């Protein structure tokens, strides 16, 4: 079987779709087991996520978060770096946003504050990714273990800061004060009402547009700049690119800083755009799900937007599901997520040989038919 005869659309469309279908099929079994008809569940989820304007708003709000963490994983992965630290980097991004907003928010207007908040989110996220990147590039430690450790360190660190530094005197819960209004990223329904479009108020905010801009940036950067080319060359074959004069230290640092920055931007959507305060464990697994998003999106910005939309749908639909069926926990979405990572990541190539065989036998029989037709 030669590789050339398999068209690209099988790799980029058929196999990912099959993988997701397999994940859905297994989760349908889980639904049947806990006594919920998977068809009813799918209906509730679809209706909850896309059936009405408010549902759409929430779906796109979650989508925004996944675009940031998915892009982050994808950029690092283009250099074959497995950044599992998205969770911690997004957490630190939130810390940056909170600091900047609390320090300057009351003195500066929104027009200056919002760029400042974006920079803070990016710099804090990138800074938290820089240390593991530096240790891998210069000292040869393993990025996977170090970033896992950095997730755990960020938990304790921010737990301490929230409790000792940021917690308002009167408050009992471990959360910061509400951030000054000038640092809030406007909600989409406010923005759209200015141009005369009426949308139900939801947490969906302008970070969504910024996330799409980040996709364009990542696409331009990776495929149309010299640095991006070097990152991909390093990812494709590290030793060959070293012979070609690409510095591995530079690539590792560059890819990880960019990745950490994108993870840090996650804070824009959730903190500046929605809850307006830093809370304990606010990232809540979005960093890990970024891995699934990047895997499903085949590390390409377009794919990532589509995969993020799928996960946004799952999140919003899952929340509706828990609301509609009281016995069902919204954690069922976490099961679905795990299955998607399993089938589209770890078992990525399970269906490939059979799909290829099927495709080849179909095309062969068709060409045989053609020949016969010509002979006759």
């Amino acid at each position: 079987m030669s590789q050339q005869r398999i068209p690209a659309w099988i790799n980029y469309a058929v196999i990912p779709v099959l993988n997701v279908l397999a994940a859905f099929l297994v989760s349908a079994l889980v639904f049947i087991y806990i006594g919920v008809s998977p068809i009813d569940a799918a209906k509730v989820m679809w209706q909850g996520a896309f059936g009405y304007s408010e549902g759409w708003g929430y779906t796109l709000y979650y989508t925004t978060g996944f675009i940031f963490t998915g892009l982050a994983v994808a950029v690092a992965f283009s250099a074959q770096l497995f950044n599992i630290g998205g969770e911690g980097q997004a957490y630190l991004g939130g810390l940056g946003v909170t600091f900047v907003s609390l320090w300057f928010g009351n003195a500066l207007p929104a027009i200056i504050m919002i760029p400042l908040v974006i920079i803070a989110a990016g710099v804090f996220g990138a800074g938290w990714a820089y240390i593991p990147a530096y240790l891998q590039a210069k000292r040869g430690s393993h990025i996977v273990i170090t970033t896992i450790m950095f997730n755990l360190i960020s938990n304790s660190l921010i737990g301490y800061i929230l409790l000792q530094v940021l917690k308002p005197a009167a408050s009992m819960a471990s959360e910061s004060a509400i951030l000054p209004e000038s640092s809030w990223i406007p909600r989409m329904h406010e923005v759209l009402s200015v141009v005369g479009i009426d949308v139900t108020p939801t947490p969906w905010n302008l970070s969504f547009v910024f996330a799409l801009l980040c996709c364009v940036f990542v696409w331009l950067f990776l495929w149309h700049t010299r640095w991006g080319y070097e990152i991909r060359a390093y990812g494709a074959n590290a030793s060959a690119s070293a012979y070609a004069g690409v510095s591995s230290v530079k690539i590792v640092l560059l890819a990880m800083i960019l990745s950490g920055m994108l993870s840090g931007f996650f804070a824009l959507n959730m903190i500046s755009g929605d809850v307006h305060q830093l809370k304990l464990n606010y990232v809540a697994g979005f960093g890990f799900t970024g891995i699934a998003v990047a895997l499903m999106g085949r590390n390409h910005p377009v794919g990532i937007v589509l995969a993020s939309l799928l996960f946004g749908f799952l999140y919003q639909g899952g929340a509706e599901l828990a609301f509609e069926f009281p016995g069902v926990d919204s954690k069922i979405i976490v099961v679905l997520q795990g299955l998607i990572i399993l089938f589209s990541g770890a078992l990525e190539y399970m269906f490939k040989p059979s799909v290829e065989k099927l495709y080849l036998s179909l095309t062969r029989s068709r060409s045989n038919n053609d020949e016969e037709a010509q002979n006759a």
Partner: protein
Amino acid sequence: MLEFWFNWIILPLDSMLRLSTPLVLCALAGMFSERAGVVNIALEGMLLAAAFAAAAAAYVSGSAWIGMLAAIGATIALSMLHGFATITHRGNQIVSGMAINILVTGATVILGRYWFDQGGQTPNLQGDARFESINWWGAEKVMDIPIVGPIYGEVLSGHSIVLYLAFALVPLSWFILFRTRFGLRLRAVGENPAAVDTAGISVIKMRYLALVVCGILTGIAGSYLSTGGNVAQFIPNMSAGKGYIALAALIFGKWRPVPAMFGCFLFGLLEAYAIRLQGVEILGIGSIPVQFIEMVPYVLTVVLLAGFIGQSRAPKAVGIPYVKERE
């Protein structure tokens, strides 16, 4: 003085043994898996699954031993899933591990709620459904003897049988790994699978066997968490990063059983002190924030991995799927 001795040395050592038991078992599990060349960050999820299975089965059957068997069954199943993805289908070992961890966090809550309807927890276990602590002979009588008495009576005596089993498994693992043919082959598969293949031994079979051992050990670890210790029920996310810490201890121990156990002791002791130091004022320093003590194991691991306190070299073939021949 005696009170200080008891509160700050004896009791922390006692907690250290309890806290490091699941770590020791998981580190041994990780050792078998990684020595055979399979990275296993799924330890975290397997531990959680085992804790759930043990508590659920122990509650239903009323026997802690049946709980342990169920836990081992669950972890072997997850281990085989990891093997199916990474050995048979040559999938990425880290992605597979992450998938298992995420899957288990969700599945334990879903099943827990469906079976017991207590927000994902299992009911409290009573009687034979939990492992009772075993008091050694004369433990109470010797307590008055200075120094040695409390070590015997408080630190060593009075734990559940799973704890003693865990520590018995350390020398056993050493023996299996370094003194048996199985161990030799296992280590070879993690260092140079092609050579092992040439010698006519199936790399795939060896790796699956290593994962079975890994499953048995994490199964016991999980049953200690939910039925063998102070807590006698399953609580969502009760593994709380212990699988990752065990991995760190394994790196500390350079993939060897006894040093890995000491790595677990170090992390267990830090955790014990973190609990004891909560809100305690220390002369001249003030109170040390608990979060900083919590952080120490992770920071130490990062520092160690960066080669600042000695090198720790992983088995050579770890993380690389084995391809028998070019197709």
